Structure formats: C-alpha cells, structure tokens
C-alpha cells in the first residue's frame, strides 16, 4: 500500500491533487459543458440531417463569404499590428525619459473599448467629421465601410501587439547586440541577424493573439462598418442566425466554423514559429 503510494507520488499523483478539484469543477461547468453543448447543438438542425446546419452555411454564398470577409479584415490587421509594433518597440526597448508616458498613451485605446473608439472614428472620419470637412468634396470615405473597421482593429489591436512585443524585446539580452556591434555588424545587420531571429517566436505568438481578437470582431464591424455588405463578418452571421432567425443549430455551426478557422491560422503560425530557434534569449551563464 505504502509502496503504491510512493510510486504514484513519484509521478506527481498524491493527495494535493485534490486541491485542483474546485477549479476543475468551475472549468467543467462554466466552459467545457457549454462548449460541448454548442458543438452538439450544431449537429442537431431542424432539417437536413446531422451536417444540415453546416450545409446551410456553406451552400449559401451570403453566409459562406463571411469567412473571406473576416479573414480579409483580420489577417491584414493582425499582420499590420505586428509589423508596426516591431520598429516602434525596437526603438523604445532601451530606457529613456518619458517612456512610461508613451507606453501609457499607447495603452489607452485598450482600456477605452471598441465602442468609444468606433464613436471617435465616426465623429472624426465620418461624412461630417473634421477630416472630411478639411478635405474638399466627398472623395475619401473612411467609415461605414471596410476601412472604418480596419482602422478600428488597428487602434484597438496595435497597443496589445506593441506591449507584447516590447516585453519580448526586453527579454533579449542587450549585450548580444553590443557583441554583434563589436563584431562589425551595423544596426540593420544587428536587427536582422540577431534581434529578429530571437524575436520571431514572440512575433508568431503575438500574431496569433491579435489575429484571434480581430477575427471575432463584432462591435466595430456593426458601428463603423457596413454590416450588411462589405463588413458582414462571420460573427454578424452567427448573431443573425442565433438572435434574429432563432436558428441555434446554425448559429452554433457558424461558431464552430469560426473556431476551426482560428485554429487553422494559429496552427500555421505556430508551425512557422517552430522553424525558428525557440530557446532562451539570454546569453550563456549570466
């Protein structure tokens, strides 16, 4: 009996594991069960057999095209957020006066939330906003279309990407760049040959997170977008199916499709990540 307990304890199984139970219960009740229930629901449409809801979604171009619309918004937005964060974070990685103020300013959009951002965009870039009053005519339309949503995704997604990348960058030992400099590497070579390869895994993770955030865009697609046309994203389709048509199986099926697409993109990004060096970013025994 004692021997068995020792053997189990060696594998990390002992009485302390019971401490996990309350948390496990919460996860089961609040996450696993509703999730499984939704997936189950998607296979029980009122007509068309087990895959009926999925068939409905994929056979109707108006529904099916929301995938392309959403990817068309979220992929470029996530890429731009990551790409724009890298040089700014790189510039700000050291210590300098006013760094905290600048970081705070960059973080504000996250705390404001999408609705306030959307309102600001409407007031500023809308047909009667400053932007269009200064510009002659009605040549540039930047709200209630693709660009409105795109800007909104950048404004809310960029600070997030920036903060993550800044922390990844601060984790890279600064003496590595100094070493590269004494070995004759100019700033671009130092960045490309040393910093970027060490940062790449962090970039992949940041991309995944900002992409998932952007892919589930809903408020800004409705408020500053064109929710019936060019920015009819997949979450709008799910909302319509669920709360306007009251077709819960279809709504669940759309949600499952959303999840699968996100998983595929994340898997691709993490697959690319594994091609890079993913170990420690400090140098030797410090």
């Amino acid at each position, binding site marked *: 009996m004692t021997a068995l307990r020792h053997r189990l304890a060696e594998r990390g199984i002992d009485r302390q594991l019971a401490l996990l139970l309350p948390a496990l219960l919460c996860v089961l009740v609040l996450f696993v069960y509703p999730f499984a229930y939704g997936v189950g629901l998607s296979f029980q449409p009122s007509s068309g057999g087990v895959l009926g809801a999925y068939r409905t979604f994929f056979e109707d171009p108006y529904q099916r095209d929301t995938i392309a619309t959403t990817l068309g918004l979220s992929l470029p937005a996530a890429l731009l957020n990551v790409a724009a964060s890298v040089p700014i974070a790189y510039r700000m990685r050291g210590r300098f006066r006013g760094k905290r103020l600048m970081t705070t300013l960059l973080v504000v959009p996250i705390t404001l939330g999408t609705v306030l951002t959307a309102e600001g965009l409407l007031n500023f870039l809308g047909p009667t906003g400053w932007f269009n009053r200064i510009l002659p005519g009605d040549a540039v339309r930047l709200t209630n279309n693709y660009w409105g949503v795109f800007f909104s995704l950048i404004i809310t997604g960029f600070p997030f990407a920036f903060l993550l990348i800044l922390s990844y960058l601060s984790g890279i*030992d600064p*003496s*590595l760049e*100094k*070493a*590269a*400099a*004494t*070995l*004759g*590497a*100019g700033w671009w*070579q130092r960045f490309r*040959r*040393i910093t970027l*390869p*060490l940062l790449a895994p962090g970039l992949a993770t940041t991309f995944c997170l900002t992409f998932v955030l952007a892919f589930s865009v809903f408020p800004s697609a409705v408020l500053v977008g064109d929710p019936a046309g060019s920015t009819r994203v997949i979450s709008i389709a799910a909302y319509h199916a669920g709360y306007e048509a009251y077709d819960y199986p279809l709504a669940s099926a759309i949600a499952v499709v959303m999840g699968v697409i996100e998983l595929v993109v994340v898997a691709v990004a993490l697959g690319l990540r594994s091609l*890079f*060096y993913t*170990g*420690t*970013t*400090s*140098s*030797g*025994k*410090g």
Partner: protein
Amino acid sequence: MTFSALRLDGVTRRFGGKDALTGLSLTIGKGEFIALLGPSGCGKSTALNCLAGLLPLSEGSIWQDERRLDTLPPERRGFGMVFQNYALFPHLSVRRNIAFGLQMRRVPRAEVRRRTDEAIRLVRLDEHAAKLPGQLSGGQQQRVAIARAVVLEPSLVLMDEPLSNLDAKLRLEMRTEIRRLHQSLGLTTVYVTHDQEEALSLADRLVVLRDGQVQQIGTPAELHDAPANAHVADFMGYRNLLPMKVSSPGTVEGSGLSFRATSSLPVGSDVVVAIRPEDLLVGPGGVPVTVEVVEYQGREAAVEARTLSGAPVHLRVTERPSPGDKVTVVADPARVLVFPA
C-alpha cells in the same frame, strides 16, 4: 591590421554629472597585454566600454597611430570584445557564432570557412562546432567567446572579466589558455579584472583604478614590490595596513607595533604602514602578538593575531601555532612600506 600604438588621451566618462572615469591616459604598444585592475565600481568596465565604442566619451580621445577612433561607432573600430556573460548568440551554432564577424566583414566564403575552422581548433572545440551555445559548459562557452573575438585578428582584444563566471579550477585553466593564446597570436589585449592575481599573472602592464582615477601604471613587478599608495598596496595583497606614526627617523610605531622602516616623512606624522602577511615573520626580539585564528593552507598557515593594543595583524607561518599562543613578530625594514595617512 598593422599599427604601432594605441593612445588613450584623457579619456573621461561622466554619468549624470558624476565622474565614472577621469582622465585615463595610456599608450598601448602593439602586442602588449594590459590589465585594468580595481574593485567593482572603479571605472574599469567603463574604460573598456569607452574603448569598444559602446559608451561615448565625455571628454578625451582615442587614437590608433594617427587615426582617431573615439568618434567611430563600435562596428567600425575593428576591435574584438569578450563579454563578462560571453554574449554568445543563442540561436547560432558555435561555428556560426565564430564566423559571424568574418561574415559581417564580407570576407570571401572559403576564407571564412578556413579561418573559422582554425579558430575552432585553436580553442579546441572541434567536436562541439555544430552545437548551440546553450549545450556547452561555462568553460566551453568562454572559449567560443574568445574564438569569436580573436578570429577577426582585431587590432585590439577587449576582455571584460572573462573568468569571473567560472569556478576556481576552470578559472586557472582558462587563465593559462588566455596567456597561451596571447603568446601564440600576439594580439594587443586590454583585460579588465578585479582579481589582482589574475592581473599580475597575465598582464605585461597593469593599470590600477580607484573611483575612476588612475592610481598607478606599471609592470606586475613594479606594482607588486612598490605600490604607489596604500590603496594599491591593499589591492596588491598587503593585508596589513596599519595606522601608525613616525616616531623617530627610521622607526614607525603605533597599533601596538613598532618597526624599522625607511621613510622620508617627518617625525610625528600619521602614516599607513603596509606589510604583506608573508613578510611578517615570527622571530625573537620582535613585537608580541596573540594568535587568534589559524587557517590551514597546505604548507603554510594563515594566522590572524592581535597586538597588545588590539589591532589585527595577518601573517603566514610554516609552523602552526594554536589560538591563544603568544608569539613575537619582526619585519625586514626593506619590506615595510610607509605611506602618508
């Protein structure tokens, strides 16, 4: 790169109005091994970073013959540097770490290969060439860092406490290795350390720094036998630094001790007397002290004793006394150094 001398002229660096390094002037001959020695915070690493171009100078200039270097960025100075934490690129193999500098200098591929191979052989890492730095031991990483710096045949190699992260045995081995490399390659080297033994055993000339000020520049023998002041003496292993007074011409007294010593200071002036533990001998006719602590050190024992007035003195003896023993100590007047207090 051929040059005849590297000249530092009044190199000064301030951090927020406080001098970290003040007016370091030094001419380094080709092939010379210079050690910058001092306690932590003395400005020795600042001096090295200024030389490497990683810190801009506040004042002064650095010259390689007639070429001014201090206005160039680090990548254009052509120096090699070994960092305290080695700063090996963790995502590149040993081979590619070593080849990095050659590639940056657009050396033809075949030559990169040949010189990298040579450097790997030089530091005896042949079987580890394909490994990542994280897979190596501390000593091996150290050798990669050295190979990476010397493969460029730089006009100057800078080493920032390269042995401080190694254990005692490895430190001795690597010290010999660095000396061997310097002898075979003849690369001009500036070596920063806080370990006087390391500095004395490696360097052709030493620069002792304290609070950013140069205290003394000289050969190991000069510093060892004739330190310029009490601080240098302290650093050179003069463990007995005793506050005393010149009692008569040729005699110092105080702290319960009395020695004969040569000093030009006037009678009655306060002085600090420096004596190495090994120069304080147990013998008849000396000053009485009481043994307090005895440390076994192989053939000898290090003894801490107290004088009658309670001042601690350190000595090394071959015959081990016991704590509590009363002995008398004498010192050769030529080995008793007297500095103004």
